């Protein structure tokens, strides 16, 4: 899909939105199950939490945050263009604005999430 169709930024924005959306959906399914375990089987939840807090888990956590932030920002971009169609003329600029905010906000957040990998668990 991504390799065959050369639709430019608009198509990439759509593909990333769809991929990040399905990824977040999959995590939501997992996350409701793990929180259900807090009531149903706290020991199983704590065991799962140790995986989340491991180095590999933290990389996954950072990727989840990236998917969430992109989906949130590009979602606002979609809404803006849906309700003010004249602005869809500037869909590329709006997409680049999304990426600017994505990196300005996302890089410090990724640093905070990943830092315990080399500094040890906090607090």
């Amino acid at each position, binding site marked *: 899909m991504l390799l065959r169709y050369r639709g430019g930024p608009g198509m990439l924005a759509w593909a990333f939105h769809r991929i990040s959306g*399905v990824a977040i*959906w999959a995590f939501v399914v997992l996350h409701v199950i793990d929180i259900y375990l*807090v009531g149903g089987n706290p020991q199983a939840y704590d065991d799962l939490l140790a995986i989340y807090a491991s180095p590999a888990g933290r990389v996954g956590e950072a990727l989840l*945050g990236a998917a*969430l932030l992109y989906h*949130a920002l590009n979602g606002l971009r979609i809404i803006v263009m*849906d309700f003010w169609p004249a602005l869809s003329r500037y869909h590329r600029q709006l997409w680049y604005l999304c990426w600017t905010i994505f990196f300005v906000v996302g890089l410090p*957040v990724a640093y905070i999430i990943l830092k315990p990998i080399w500094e040890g668990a906090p607090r």
Partner: protein
Amino acid sequence: MTARYTRAGRARPAGGGLELMIWYLMRVTGIALFVLALTHFLILHVLYDPAEQDASWIAQVRWSSLFWRVFDWSLLMLVLFHAFMGVRTVVADYARGGLRTVLLTGLYLIAIALFAAGTMVVMTLPVVPAG
């Protein structure tokens, strides 16, 4: 018919009815999730660290106040609608006929199960006093 502009989202369904309502609700829940989901992520992944959020932390700290239980349940309702209606659009785009029916049925069953499990735990988890 007027042109339906879109550069990334699903085009506004013509003709109204349930599909148009879902289309609007995706945008309304999307704006609400922008605030609630990002706040949830900011608190639980940036201000706090997952390493400290074991089961007793959730009972003693996170869900010791009614506010955060209501907040997290609202987030659950919004995200279940938004995520499952979103995946429904994806399924409808790629699957036809019997496969689509099977996938959508499974999707709705998972949504109902998560609605029940999430609602139950947020409402029934006992509050354990800290200490």
